[in-house]
């Protein structure tokens, strides 16, 4: 479903400070650009993410993502696995009220992957742009 070329989705990207956040900094050093309506929020570990954070974010934006360390590479051992289960739970909650579950996602990357960071963020932006505005947005 396309909603016009002028739709610019707002996206929140929660970033593990050991991977996603550092990858964003690497992208900045490489002077790689990504859509400006993507807001980054640093977490001490992807395992800090909670269904509540996702849901509160979804009240205001069109899509949310968590950028976590590669599988089996979490500094706190299982943080990225826990983040994955919370993504799945959030997707279930959104699905039961008729909101596309693809608006919430988890992606894995390493600290030195600046290019990968930009690719992930751009793909999410394009996907949410294709989905259109979040129909459940409470705070416009």
């Amino acid at each position: 479903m396309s909603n016009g070329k002028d739709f610019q989705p707002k996206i929140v990207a929660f970033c593990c400070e050991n991977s996603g956040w550092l990858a964003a900094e690497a992208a900045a050093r490489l002077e790689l650009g990504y859509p400006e309506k993507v807001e980054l929020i640093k977490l001490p570990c992807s395992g800090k993410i909670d269904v509540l954070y996702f849901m509160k974010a979804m009240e205001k934006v069109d899509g949310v993502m968590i950028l976590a360390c590669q599988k089996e590479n979490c500094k706190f051992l299982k943080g990225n696995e826990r983040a994955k289960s919370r993504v799945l739970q959030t997707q279930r909650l959104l699905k039961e009220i008729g909101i596309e579950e693809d608006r919430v996602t988890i992606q894995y990357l390493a600290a030195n992957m600046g290019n990968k960071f930009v690719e992930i963020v751009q793909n999410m932006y394009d996907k949410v742009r294709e989905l259109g505005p979040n129909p459940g947005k409470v705070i416009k």
Partner: protein
Amino acid sequence: MIVAERKPIDEILGFLSKHQKIMLLGCGGCVTVCLAGGEKEVGILGSELAMARAKEGRPLEVVQRTIERQCDFEYFEGIRHEVKDVDAILSLACGIGIQTVAEAFPDKVVWPGVNTKFLGVNQNVGVWAERCQACGQCVLDKTGGICPVARCSKSIFNGPCGGSQHGKCEVSADTDCAWALIHDRLTRLGQVDSMREILPVKDWSHSRDGGPRKLVREDLTLESGK
């Protein structure tokens, strides 16, 4: 602890279909511990309800509050001034809390947000199991600390029955036979001979057979009744 589970979202949305502003009221007691109706669950459900109604184009204002306990009247005083301004209260407490809310606010519509399941224990993350049926006359002294009323599918007092196989109950392969557990525990304690004692028929008048129960402790009651 009292174990509860959130009701399906469609059922809750149905309750709230005619309201524009509600209070979503969590409880800091058992339902917080069993992750069904504490502060975090209030936040999550509040978001879900607000988004579901925004999607329908009929916004719902959700005032989110969580009080210490919903089974004690004193904790409602702190929210009384806010309750005036809402159409209804959606309580995430157990059945006891929900009824107490209804009694505390007699002129306000109160909806249940959870199904109260049983009195149980947290066995693992996300897993709860029934342990007590509140039958009113505890026999755990005779059964090694394992309750045949709540944990035997038939609540029999002199088991195991013929349906016990390899420590499991015939009702479900996932259910331990309570009497096998009792036997093993009494063996470990060196008290297995006590199983030879025939336990008398249970007096169910202490349970629900006597109608709704009430406990009055005269050593605690005050003349004012409060």
